[in-house]
């Protein structure tokens, strides 16, 4: 069986209909367990105090803000190369989810920054690239709504997505190659000696899993809605022509 079979809307609707309840259930469990664990059962940090608990929202949201855009990039490239409508519609469906994740990362970061850095906002490389990523999300969504022909909209938004990918990658790696910013380095690392203490690490992993599953569940739901909207448009057009 080839992965391209799922480019068939009918096949996608069948498979996603089966998967959606399971992914939604798993997302709910992981989010509830992870956030309750992080909020109620982790200690205050010796420097950050209780504000360290914000990490359980901020880091997973930032992870999905960046990876959401990269998922849109892959879907856009598939659209441009193979012209599969489901991939263009899945990129369109992912944008509001990614935009919300970016907003959560920005808001929780600002709330954390006020007591820790003494400011809600700084023109730091990571913060600035994240703000630009948020604006790209807004522009991407606006472009989809501004163009009537769906194929032209898919083409132009795909190009915009490729341009915006620079900022998605930049927001991930900005702290590594620009040292003048306020934002600290990565909280997580494959090297065990570098990442945060296990008492925060384990609930954070559960929260990150929960955010990934939430993204997938919402993506499936919203892509199904987009496919239905496209079919509705086609039926209404056919009705008008008859």
């Amino acid at each position, binding site marked *: 069986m080839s992965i391209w079979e799922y480019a068939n809307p009918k096949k996608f609707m069948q498979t996603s209909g089966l998967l959606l309840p399971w992914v939604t259930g798993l997302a709910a469990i992981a989010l509830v367990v992870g956030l309750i664990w992080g909020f109620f059962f982790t200690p205050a940090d010796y420097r950050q*105090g*209780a504000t360290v608990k914000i990490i359980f929202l*901020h880091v997973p949201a930032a992870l999905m803000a960046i990876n959401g855009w990269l998922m849109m990039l892959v879907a856009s490239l598939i659209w441009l190369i193979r012209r599969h409508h489901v991939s263009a519609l899945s990129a369109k469906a992912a944008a*509001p989810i990614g935009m*919300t994740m970016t907003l959560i990362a920005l808001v929780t970061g600002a709330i954390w920054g006020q007591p820790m850095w003494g400011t809600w906002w700084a023109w730091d490389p990571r913060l600035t690239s994240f703000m630009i990523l948020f604006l790209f999300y807004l522009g991407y969504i606006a472009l989809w709504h501004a163009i009537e022909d769906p194929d032209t909209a898919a083409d132009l938004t795909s190009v915009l997505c490729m341009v915006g990918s620079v900022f998605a990658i930049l927001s991930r790696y900005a702290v590594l190659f620009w040292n003048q910013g306020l934002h600290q380095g990565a909280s997580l690392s494959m090297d065990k000696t570098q990442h945060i203490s296990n008492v925060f690490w384990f609930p954070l992993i559960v929260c990150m899993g929960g955010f990934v599953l939430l993204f997938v569940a919402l993506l499936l*739901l*919203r892509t199904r809605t987009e496919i*239905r909207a496209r079919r*509705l448009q086609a*039926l209404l057009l056919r009705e008008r022509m008859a």
Partner: protein
Amino acid sequence: MLPELGKYAATVLGAYALAILLIVGLVVLSLRQATRMRDRLRDVEERVKE
């Protein structure tokens, strides 16, 4: 019931409240759009069949 948040209680609770509000808002909006679109499509499909 609440953990000891000390002087950062408003900061932490504010961050959680806003983030959960945004997530719940996104989920509710996505579900509403999905239900509305499914019902509209069903109506049109039935009308086309007739």
